[in-house]
């Protein structure tokens, strides 16, 4: 067995085209994740009862825990209500994608294309595509900036970045601006890097010892997937908190 058998590609592979728009395997995967979430939401919504059963009770406890956590973090029930849908959706979307990562069929069902030597997997774990994580990072970034502008006021929030009060404040503002833009990079690379590295690790281990050994590593990757989904939502939340907190004057 040689290392040549290990096939790793950073870019997602297009499966078919709609017009000139390529549909990649990660895009198919994200549609599946959306379908799972929508179906789950519809089914659960229909079966909601005023007197909750055991399962509904458990879910209500989870929702309440996240709700209380957000209210404590943002120091406001109203703001928690406003941001809860976004933060919870970010978490659920990333988490479900990471949880179904190792479902049989994902990555193992392949199609062959003429003119292509390598087999192309029909489905591929969603977060191993930098496009997906960059899109999520842009969503988080825009929400952070817009909520800063809306809740703090245009000039008050803008003065965090462009401030002619003193040379010192001006330079601090520039640094703030760069670090704000750096978040785009760190948000997307953190998620992409963690999940992609996990996939590569599993592929390499499966090439050496195909049976049994990959299982504990897969379990670890599921743990990492949960942590990363939580981190993404948590960091968005805490950056929102930083953005809507007025600058202290000493």
């Amino acid at each position, binding site marked *: 067995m040689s290392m040549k058998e290990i096939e790793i590609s950073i870019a997602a592979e297009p499966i078919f085209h709609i017009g000139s728009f390529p549909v990649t395997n990660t895009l198919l995967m994200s549609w599946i994740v959306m379908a799972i979430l929508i179906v789950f939401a519809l089914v659960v919504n229909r079966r909601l009862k005023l007197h909750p059963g055991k399962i509904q009770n458990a879910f209500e406890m989870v929702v309440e825990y996240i709700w209380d956590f957000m209210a404590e973090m943002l120091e406001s029930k109203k703001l928690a209500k406003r941001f809860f849908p976004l933060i919870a959706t970010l978490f659920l979307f990333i988490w479900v994608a990471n949880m179904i990562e190792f479902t049989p069929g994902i990555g193992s069902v392949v199609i062959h294309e003429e003119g292509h030597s390598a087999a192309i997997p029909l489905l591929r774990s969603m977060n191993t595509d930098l496009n997906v994580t960059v899109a999520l990072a842009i969503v988080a970034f825009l929400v952070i900036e817009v909520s800063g502008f809306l809740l703090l006021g245009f000039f008050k929030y803008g003065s965090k970045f462009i401030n002619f009060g003193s040379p010192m404040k001006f330079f601090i503002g520039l640094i703030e601006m760069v670090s704000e833009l750096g978040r785009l990079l760190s948000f997307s*690379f953190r998620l992409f890097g963690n999940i992609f590295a996990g996939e590569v690790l599993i592929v390499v281990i499966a090439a050496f010892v195909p049976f049994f050994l990959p299982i504990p590593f897969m379990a670890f990757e599921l743990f990492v997937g949960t942590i990363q989904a939580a981190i993404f939502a*948590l960091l968005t939340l805490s950056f929102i908190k930083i953005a809507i907190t007025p600058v202290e004057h000493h």
Partner: protein
Amino acid sequence: MEFKDLGIEAAKLLGMGIAIGFGAIGPGIGLGLIFSKAIEAVGRNPEASGKVQGIMYIGMALTEALAIFALVIAFMIRYA
């Protein structure tokens, strides 16, 4: 064999190894500091463990991101 005879593939492999190898040093030290301080804090004040854990995970994510940058760069050197 001289260094210039190595070829582009070997140079890529070397570059990948160096990128992730050096890139993991700093975040490794940082993560050690974060966790040691977090454990210390929980040891002194066990009631605050929930709060400490939250802050610890955020710090962990920010520090670990640096190692992940190095990893992504390493992959890009090799495969992209």
